[in-house]
């Protein structure tokens, strides 16, 4: 338990260990700790940012959905209007077509009636001529009196 040279040897040993620790041990470890601290802070900030972005995205999504709904309703309304229009158009077309058909049929009927009348008239003229021929015998020349007979027939 004497104080001897060990004292100085211990002082040197101590100084060497402290110097080594200061130069090669402390800085890398503390730097790593600081770096990790920065990393964690960065990560937390990023998480916070992500959170905000998510909220923003949700809001945007809601807006887009609302817009889409409005557009869809618009389209449906337009389609319904168009459908009504088409039905109306078809109805009016059908009406016009029907009228046209009716008119055509009436015209046909008219024409047929006229034709029948004409035929009848001719037949009556021919019959009258034949009857007149028989009645008048040779006194009437069919060819010379033809216009008279035709006039007559026309009056029927």
């Amino acid at each position, binding site marked *: 338990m004497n104080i*001897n*040279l060990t004292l100085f040897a211990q002082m040197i040993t101590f100084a060497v260990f402290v110097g080594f620790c200061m130069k090669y041990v402390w800085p890398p470890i503390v730097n790593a700790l600081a770096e990790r601290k920065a990393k964690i802070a960065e990560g937390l900030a990023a998480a916070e940012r992500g959170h905000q972005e998510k909220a923003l995205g949700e809001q945007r999504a809601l807006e887009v959905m609302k817009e889409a709904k409005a557009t869809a309703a618009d389209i449906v309304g337009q389609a319904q209007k168009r459908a009504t229009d088409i039905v109306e158009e078809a109805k009016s077309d059908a009406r016009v077509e029907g009228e046209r058909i009716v008119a055509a049929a009436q015209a046909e009927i008219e024409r047929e009636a006229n034709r029948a009348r004409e035929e009848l008239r001719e037949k009556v003229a021919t019959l009258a001529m034949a009857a007149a021929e028989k009645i008048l015998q040779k006194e009437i020349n069919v060819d010379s009196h033809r216009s008279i007979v035709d006039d007559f027939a026309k009056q029927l």
Partner: protein
Amino acid sequence: MSSSETLTSQGYIQHHLTNLTLGVHPEHGLGFAHNSAEAAEMGFWAINVDTMFFSILLGVVFIWLFRKVADNVTAGVPGGAQNFVEWIVDFVEENVRGSFSGKNPMVAPLALTIFVWVFLMNLMDLIPVDLIPHLFGQLMAVLGADPHHVYLKVVPTTDPNATFGMALMVFFMVLYYSIKMKGVGGFLGELTLQPFGKWGMPANLILEGISLLSKPVSLALRLFGNMYAGEMIFILIALLYSGGVVLAGTAGVLQFVWAVFHILIITLQAFIFMVLTIVYLDMAHQEHH
């Protein structure tokens, strides 16, 4: 083994408290001291080989472990060893940040070295007192030495040379930074112009001088005293083992209880040495008047 010497309690204790001293004896020349009286006769130019060996070994263990971690340090997920080292570094850094207000990149590594090194040296106290000295004695006996005269103290902090060595380095650092931060005049002023003003200069010098010199002395003696006393208790408990079955059983229980309590003491002493070093250096950096 010489049969002329019987093992007395006094001899046993004395044996445990003697360092393995290498030096030049005025009569026997260069060699290891054969007893404490011879060690004393060697005077200042002798060296305690056991203290040097164990303190350097433990210091190298500390440096090796921390350097290994520092080499592979990562800012990502730390492994087991790195986690452990970071825990200690964080603890030390927190203490430095709490007690040291100046800016000096040396204080934190200094505190770390003191804490871990002193703790490891104190930790040697928990190894059963006879284990390493006995094995060493047997080894030396094989090499032809008398095991009764082979001394070995495994706890460097029970050697005042070790504690005073550290305390003096801290003291020199306090002086260096006091003068560096305040200038020679400022430092001398601090020593002589307070607390009584310039007319009480002699009284001031005595008071401040004592308070300055008491720093390294108390630092060294506190650690030395605690560890020396703890070691002594272990030695006394070990003496009980030779006193029959009952005493040996009691000794076993006592040794366990004291060892558990001692875990607290060795950690606390390492911590106190570190904190006081930080505080003294903080005072050296501060211009408080």
